[in-house]
């Protein structure tokens, strides 16, 4: 089995929890789209963590693929050009191809240089989106598209869209878990733990790093497509390196070494933002402060606190 019994149990439990969220959320003063958003960021962060926690590579440019797929989705269903069932896969494919190309170019650079290159490419996308007014609507963003029907299933209502995203959410959890369990996932761990020893075990390190980059970016794309459909809106900030930073933040706070860490981080991020913003608009301060604390003292994140031995 590519999933252990424990995997199925946990994913089942998490799935079960999210399945009843639309009933719980209104009761605690929140709303269904918040739950949808948590799942979408969960997809983004869990996929992203294949690269960060799984392979040990930091990218500040994944928002480029998130936003690219978001814009692509919007553009493809604008004026009913394409049905949603084709637009979403096309958008995700777009993110995949962009990542394959960019990844091939930059993966040979290490550490800080790689991180800065991801920022550079992300910002290029950002500026293209904000300047190309005729195509993307520029700084005002892309409007005029609306989610309607997916293979006959009406996803306009919030609840329906929630369960639509829920399907992708479950698939993501299952797929990423299987990947990390597989020999590929284990090879990525070897690369993360000691890249030279990995090389000297006969592992083509660059090839696997590229794979991790592309795989994580594809999930960023999926999340981006769904996000654009959640808001019926796409805007340049989706591509900005700060949005990439949000994914990093979620993975670090939730715990990059734990499978559900990024999801926990996503939940915390969305809740903090939504709850704190009812008291003050300055939610970035406690969030940034919490992030700093985690980077310094709890490098294994929240879920790492339950592991034996913490910190470094």
């Amino acid at each position: 089995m590519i999933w252990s019994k424990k995997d199925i149990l946990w994913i089942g439990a998490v799935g079960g929890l999210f399945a009843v969220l639309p009933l719980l959320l209104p009761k605690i003063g929140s709303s269904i789209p918040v739950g949808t958003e948590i799942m979408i960021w969960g997809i983004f962060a869990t996929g992203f963590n294949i690269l960060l926690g799984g392979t040990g590579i930091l990218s500040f440019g994944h928002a480029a693929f998130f936003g690219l797929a978001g814009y692509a989705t919007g553009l493809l269903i604008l004026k009913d050009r394409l049905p949603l069932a084709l637009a979403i896969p096309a958008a995700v494919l777009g993110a995949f191809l962009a990542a394959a190309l960019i990844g091939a170019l930059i993966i040979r650079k290490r550490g800080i240089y790689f991180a800065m290159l991801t920022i550079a490419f992300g910002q290029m996308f950002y500026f293209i989106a904000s300047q190309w007014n005729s195509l993307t609507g520029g700084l005002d963003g892309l409007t005029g598209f609306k989610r309607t029907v997916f293979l006959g299933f009406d996803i306009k209502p919030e609840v329906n869209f929630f369960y639509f995203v829920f399907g992708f959410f479950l698939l993501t959890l299952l797929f990423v878990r299987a990947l990390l369990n597989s020999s590929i996932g284990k090879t990525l761990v070897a690369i993360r733990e000691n890249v030279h020893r990995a090389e000297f075990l006969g592992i083509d390190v660059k090839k696997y790093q590229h794979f991790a980059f592309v795989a994580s970016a594809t999930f960023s794309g999926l999340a981006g497509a769904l996000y654009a459909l959640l808001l019926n809106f796409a805007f340049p900030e989706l591509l900005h390196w700060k949005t990439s930073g949000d994914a990093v933040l979620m993975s670090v706070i939730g715990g990059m070494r734990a499978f559900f860490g990024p999801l926990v981080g996503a939940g915390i991020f969305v809740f903090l933002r939504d709850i704190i913003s009812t008291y003050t608009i300055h939610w970035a301060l406690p969030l940034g402060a919490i992030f700093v604390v985690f980077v310094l003292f709890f490098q294994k994140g929240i879920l790492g606190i339950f592991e034996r031995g913490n910190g470094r």
Partner: protein
Amino acid sequence: MELSLLLSQLFNGIATGMLYVLMAMGLTIIMGTMGVVNFSHGVLFAFGAYFAYLIAEKAGFFGALLMAPVVVGMIGMVLERGLVARVYGKDPLYGLLLTFGLAMALEEVIRIGWGTAGLPFSAPGFLSSFIDLKIMFYPAYRLAVLGFILLLIAALWFFLERTTTGKIVRAGIQDSVMVGILGVNTKALFTGVFGLGTFLAGLAGVLAAPMAGIMPTMGDNVIMPSFIVIILGGIGSFWGSVTGGLMLGIIVSLCIQFVPAVAELSMYLVMALVLLVRPRGLFGEEGLFE
């Protein structure tokens, strides 16, 4: 293309470039000495401007120019002792993450303290006019900034080349471990370097305030160009920062003149090109961070 227009745009490029040089200088000594990628440099630049706004009410522009950077430098040293020092020796990505989080939190502090709207800040009276340079009219303030930063660069050069402390700093940039073995108090050195670097960022913020206005996001707009400058010039290199800053300032200004939509994009293209073709930049050392 009118010569005066081209020239004034060129001068604008040099003026912006000079600000980039100050920022890059601070960033590069921090990166070179402690291996920390200081993402909070932008927000400290902004703090320089905001403190200048506060101080100028009582002490005027020149009072602000004198004191605001010092305050920023001191804040920098506190941040270094309390937070940044904890990530020395670890994977450089921790420093990046830490300062990223700091930048996020500190930018919000600015919004809490001074609101989200921009603040006005004017240059000292005698500099708010235009100077007749025969071929063009150019704002006196920008010329003054240009001159001032040139003097500052000379002073920094003198400090680094001719004073004992400066030489220690340079040695630290080359090899901070070795410097410690030779008996230098690295703790003090690192704090001092971080303080100097952030002082320069605050100073750049004060100087930039009359030119670009004061806004909470002003740091965001300079942090990336500053990184691009040190990548272009070479991490840890004095002349790299100077050359890189000037080059980038001019490239961007000319782009704004001829192909405005591409101006910001061109910066990132430059960065990507350098990183892919010659990661050490123009004057940097091979193998750093590779």
